[in-house]
């Protein structure tokens, strides 16, 4: 149990403030100023640079399976990715991925 309420509130406030400053950082300070082409070129790859890395460990070592690779989850992730590329639809990929997960869990016992 977390009993030290002073520490808790310090964490809540500083984490909230710090997270806000991280989010505000570039958007706030650079604002409307022009950035050099080489910076823009790198920024075009932020989403595809962060998101896949964010999920990779969750897919390969899922906590729900005590950190062991789960074939059903791995196959479902591949299915979602394939559907997303093929249909170019985010909704299709989410639904397809979850259906694939339940199907593989059922089939693989």
């Amino acid at each position, binding site marked *: *149990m*977390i*009993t030290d309420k002073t*520490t808790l509130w*310090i*964490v*809540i406030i500083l*984490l*909230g*403030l*710090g*997270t806000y400053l*991280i*989010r*505000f*950082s*570039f*958007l*706030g300070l650079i*604002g409307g100023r022009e*950035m050099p082409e080489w910076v823009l*070129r*790198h*920024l*075009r*790859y*932020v*989403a*595809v*640079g*962060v*998101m*896949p*890395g*964010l*999920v*990779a460990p*969750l*897919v390969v070592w*899922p*906590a*729900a399976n005590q950190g062991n690779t789960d074939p059903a*989850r791995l196959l*479902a*992730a591949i299915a*979602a*990715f*394939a*559907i*997303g*590329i093929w249909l170019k*639809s*985010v*909704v299709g*990929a*989410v639904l397809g*991925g*979850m259906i694939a*997960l*339940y199907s593989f869990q059922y089939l693989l016992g």
Partner: protein
Amino acid sequence: MIITNPKSAYLTGFRDGSPFILVVVPFALLFGVIATEAGLNLIETMAMTIMVIAGAAQFTAVSLMLDQAPTFIVLLTALAVNLRMAMYSAALVPHVGKAPLGIRMLMAYFMVDQAFAVAVKKYNEEPQMTLPQKTAYYFGCLSPIVPLWYLFSYIGAVVGTAIPPEYSLDFAIPICFISLTAPMMRSAPHFLAALVSVAATLALIWVPYNLGLIAAAMLAMMTGAQVELILKRRARTPTEGQAA
């Protein structure tokens, strides 16, 4: 829907953000439950949810406090989990950097992964969007997500039951990010950047404070930018050759 004015941009954003309700609801419920079990009362749980609105960092902070970690370590670790958002912040600058300061301050507060990814995908697909359309679209994306994040954290804290693990909704989170990313694989640089991101994060999993992800993302961005340059040069060379 065709975007013609800020109102239709907002509604299109709302529609494009709504699939992620599936992810936000179970995740928020779980946070409410875990936080309450950890000893946070309703006000403390909601204060954290509203001030931080970043699920992964909130779970990290609560679990480290349960382990009696020093406050400095709790803050450092949880903030490192959120460091990726500095990259989101930078990536939004070319699109909405010219928006008024007040709007940008609000956009920063609501900068959640899903809204960022959905919005940037749209900005790249439809570069002719005007600034008011872009900001309206962004607020549209987060409108179905953030209020439900608050509401279901509250319900989780009050009711105390999360969705049973048998439904495997834990996996809705990776599925959601994969689904957001897959349609972005529209060119070789994007695909190679994603590949580097996955490989480098897995290889750098031992790096403390989640900084492996940040390093992997930077490597991925460098890969994407370099491959883009090489492809552009290659496409240009034959015509220049003819001219000479």
